[in-house]
């Protein structure tokens, strides 16, 4: 540690004392000037008008969004973070593909382990769209569209269902039709027929 010279220390102390004296003199001068200012009451509404003038106005959400979207931004990333996010994206896409396998058209309607694959097949060359609705999909056709094999009149769909008893019908170009050639149909009470499908050890049709 370098030891400071006594002469240098002395000079610094003298300089600081002078600076302090100048500062105090300035403050005293300001004080005396303020005392000389005549006492005037502020006009009514000054405070509110000043506050109104300085108040920050809230920008609408759409404008903030627009500004955010149109302003330039820079992204920083590390190779590790990039790899993680890429892996996550790939996993998401893979999961989506698994759920809707374009090749086999298999749809899992239940996550249970005891699922039985059921193949719905229909020879309907003139149809434009074929869907299956039933108690297994709450009669909603969206996830259960049959797909036509290339160069074939056959429409196919494989579903994995839990053991149980189901009723279903095909929606051929929007028209309810029971499974042609099925062993057992039921009147749905609304003027159509449903086909009965029993799966599992207890079925007895």
């Amino acid at each position, binding site marked *: 540690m370098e030891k400071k010279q006594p002469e240098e220390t002395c000079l610094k102390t003298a300089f600081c004392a002078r600076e302090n004296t100048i500062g105090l003199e300035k403050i005293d001068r300001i004080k005396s000037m303020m005392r000389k200012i005549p006492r005037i009451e502020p006009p009514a509404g000054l405070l509110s008008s000043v506050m109104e003038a300085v108040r920050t106005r809230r920008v609408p959400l759409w404008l903030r969004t627009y500004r955010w979207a149109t302003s330039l931004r820079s992204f920083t990333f590390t190779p590790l973070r990039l790899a993680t996010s890429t892996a996550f994206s790939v996993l998401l896409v893979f999961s989506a593909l698994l759920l809707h396998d374009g090749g086999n058209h298999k749809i899992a309607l239940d996550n249970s382990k005891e699922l039985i694959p059921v*193949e719905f097949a229909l020879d309907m060359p003139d149809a434009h769209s074929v869907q299956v609705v039933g*108690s297994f999909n709450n009669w909603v056709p969206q996830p259960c569209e049959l797909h036509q094999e290339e160069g074939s009149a056959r429409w196919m769909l494989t579903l994995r269902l839990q053991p149980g008893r189901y009723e279903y019908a095909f929606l051929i170009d929007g028209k309810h039709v029971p*499974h042609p050639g099925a062993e057992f149909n039921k009147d*749905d*009470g609304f003027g159509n027929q449903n086909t009965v499908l029993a*799966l599992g050890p207890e079925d007895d*049709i």
Partner: protein
Amino acid sequence: MTFRKSSLCLLALIAVSAVPLDVGAQNNQAGVTHGVTQAVQEAKKAGVPDETINRLLSLGYDNGVEAASMANLVSIVVEVKNEDLPQEPFLNKIEEGVAKHVPAASIEQVLKQKKQDYLFARSLTSDYLKKHGLKQQVAPKDLVGITESLFSGLSREDLALIMEQAPPVSPTTLRRAIHIQASLKQVGFDPKLSDQIVSTGFKHNFFTHQQRGFGRAIVAGKRNGVSDAKIAEAAMSTMQSGGTVAGFCSQIGVSFSDVDRPRDDVPRPLFHGRK
């Protein structure tokens, strides 16, 4: 200035006339909402599970069912619960009707008819059990199977006749026999021969879980062009000799694999569409 005055007058007039209309609409809406609330409260009081109530309400909300109709549907479910009938067939029917865009009034009508059918079938089965001194309870699955046969081609008279002629058997056996009878009726099988097959099956205790697929085998034989007489003869000889469905299939020239159901450990596709 004149224009402004007349515009203001017109606006004032619209506002004055709109207020009572709006109040009326609000009152009406409040009444309807009150109807749903009351129906839901009654359902809870009757012991309808919260899950069931939520399932119904969300179905109605998702499909835009009017509140008044929703209240009526919930009330029918309450009636079903109070009668101690299985609720699932009714809930399924509501879901089916709503999804098929059937008017709510028609759904209500179908449900009311269904309730009557269930009460009829339960009373009939109860009388049958009493008549034969059987102290068994009718399981919900059996009651559902027996009643739903009324939507599969059998009439109330058919059902009553089967029960009248049936020997003392369990409700499950009764349900299986009724299914066979309904299957035979659906394919237009000779009614006399159908009765003979069913009564022989009862006699030889053939309608067991082991003989599943028997009904489908008969239907397959009929579709393959085998005569009713030949099918009936083969069926009855199988029953009398304690044979199996596989043996019966070979007698009428039907592939057993076509009618056999997969075992739990060997799942495989079941249905192949035929046109």
